[in-house]
């Protein structure tokens, strides 16, 4: 009985995974590529910093590599959030999926969970790629420190996955949702100085890169803006719930 129950849910997870698999793998390749690229080109990049004492590798990683990787990651998870029932509607399979004895809530919760896990895995890709690429160019970067950046990115940046998830429930087509998602990204990062004055939690890029918590000397993360992360996660949750509620009322 329990076994049957688990198999049933297993199939729901499996389908959700199959539907996001291609995007996830493409995103993983992209994030890995950018991570490797920023490290491999670090020699040239570091040379451009004309300061005394000269910039260290770890400092360079914190100042330049992290935010480049994060930009790619943020865009990737935004697009990972797209799809779902609205895409199925466009494809014509929504009638079948929704005629199954599985509630919309469950479909959405499963997609959110799978996507969150995928986002987390994607966040960990640089944690492996950076140390590995560093070794390759004859430098070292501690995995533990890289993992800290990954953790911060994941916690603070889940809201971007949620944004893609939200737009994909509101808008009828993948392209429209992608467009709105991109627009949201643009507005978030360009308007943040203005918003930051009124809503400190909106300092997204500050939050993501942990700029205020990077130790100047070592270039490693020391501590974290917990309230900022909490606010970001809360926003992510709100977006998930809003998307689910909107989907409840939709005609498919």
């Amino acid at each position: 009985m329990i076994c049957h129950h688990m198999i049933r849910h297993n199939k729901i997870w499996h389908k959700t995974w199959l539907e996001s698999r291609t995007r996830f793998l493409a995103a993983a390749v992209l994030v890995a590529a950018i991570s490797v690229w920023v490290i491999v080109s670090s020699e040239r990049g570091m040379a451009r910093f004309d300061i005394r004492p000269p910039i260290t590798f770890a400092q360079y990683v914190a100042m330049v590599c992290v935010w480049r990787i994060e930009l790619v990651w943020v865009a990737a998870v935004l697009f990972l959030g797209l799809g779902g029932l609205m895409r199925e509607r466009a494809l014509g399979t929504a009638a079948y999926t929704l005629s199954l004895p599985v509630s919309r809530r469950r479909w959405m919760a499963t997609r959110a969970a799978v996507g969150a896990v995928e986002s987390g895995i994607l966040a960990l890709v640089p944690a492996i790629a950076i140390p590995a690429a560093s070794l390759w160019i004859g430098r070292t970067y501690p995995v533990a420190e890289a993992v800290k950046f990954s953790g911060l990115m994941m916690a603070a940046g889940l809201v971007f996955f949620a944004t893609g998830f939200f737009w994909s429930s509101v808008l009828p087509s993948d392209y429209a949702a992608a467009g709105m998602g991109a627009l949201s990204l643009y507005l978030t990062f360009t308007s943040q100085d203005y918003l930051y004055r009124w809503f400190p939690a909106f300092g997204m890029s500050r939050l993501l890169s942990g700029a205020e918590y990077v130790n100047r000397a070592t270039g490693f993360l020391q501590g974290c803006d917990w309230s900022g992360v909490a606010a970001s996660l809360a926003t992510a949750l709100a977006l998930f719930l809003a998307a689910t509620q909107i989907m409840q009322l939709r005609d498919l």
Partner: protein
Amino acid sequence: MIIETHDLVKMYRRSVAVDGLNLAVPEGSITGFLGPNGSGKTTTIKMLLGLVRPTSGEGFVFSEPIAEDRASVAIRSRTAYVSEDKRLYSYMTARQILDFTRPLYPNWSRRRERELLLRFNLPLDRKFSGFSKGMRTKLALVLALARSAPLLILDEPSEGLDPIATEHMLVAVIQAAAEGATVFFSTHQISQVERVADRVIILQSGRLVLEGSLEDLRARYRRIHLAFPMRAPVEEMQLDGVCKASSQGHVVSLLADGHLEEITGHAHAMGAISVTVEPVGLRELFLESVDEPCSTGVPACVEVEEEPHDLSSHDPS
């Protein structure tokens, strides 16, 4: 009643898809759901399954309210649906889709799945994207019929099927009905309804224009041809029981629902030289019902068996 709706309405921004629909589908019956394109059949079915939210009114399947989330899941666990689109996951093979669907239905019959797969001869390991229209319908039918669900809702179940496959489909549907399932199928194939169905529901512009058991309809309706020596006095033939009256030259053609004796008696009194009474097939009944409501001003003969209910847009005179 397995399916019941009360004044079900669905409005989109500029149009009314379903306009105050009252359905009653008895358990164990085979009901054909007919209507021209755009009459609201698919929308009605989607509302019953929770894919579309009714604007107003209510509906019940297995006595569960269709508009409530949890109830809708319960309904769907006992319903087999073949959608109009019959589109499935293009990235899965037929086998994978079956494996995916099977665990969701505890009463799934492996035996019936095998039988149907054999009969329809489907390539199990081909990706769905490589399926032709007919193959898609066949797979959808297997997925639906193997569930052993007490309610089958089929939207155009013979779409894309050659005559042999259509026959297999009808036999499989009848098998399910013989085992106690209720069948509700929407189609343009009037001949299929005539053959297989116990009851028929005809929709037009979102409203019910005809409903009843096929036998009842066959027993009640008659086409009467009256030949007169001179111009046919069609206005004088609009009596009780006459649904439609038309004339061509000196012949009057009536569609009558009862009161045959009075009508033929009156015709004789008016000087008719010949009276021919013929049965009316479903196709003719369908065409007459959805043609125009009542161009002659005579109320359309629509009746619901269980309760007296005026479903036409005109007041009965």
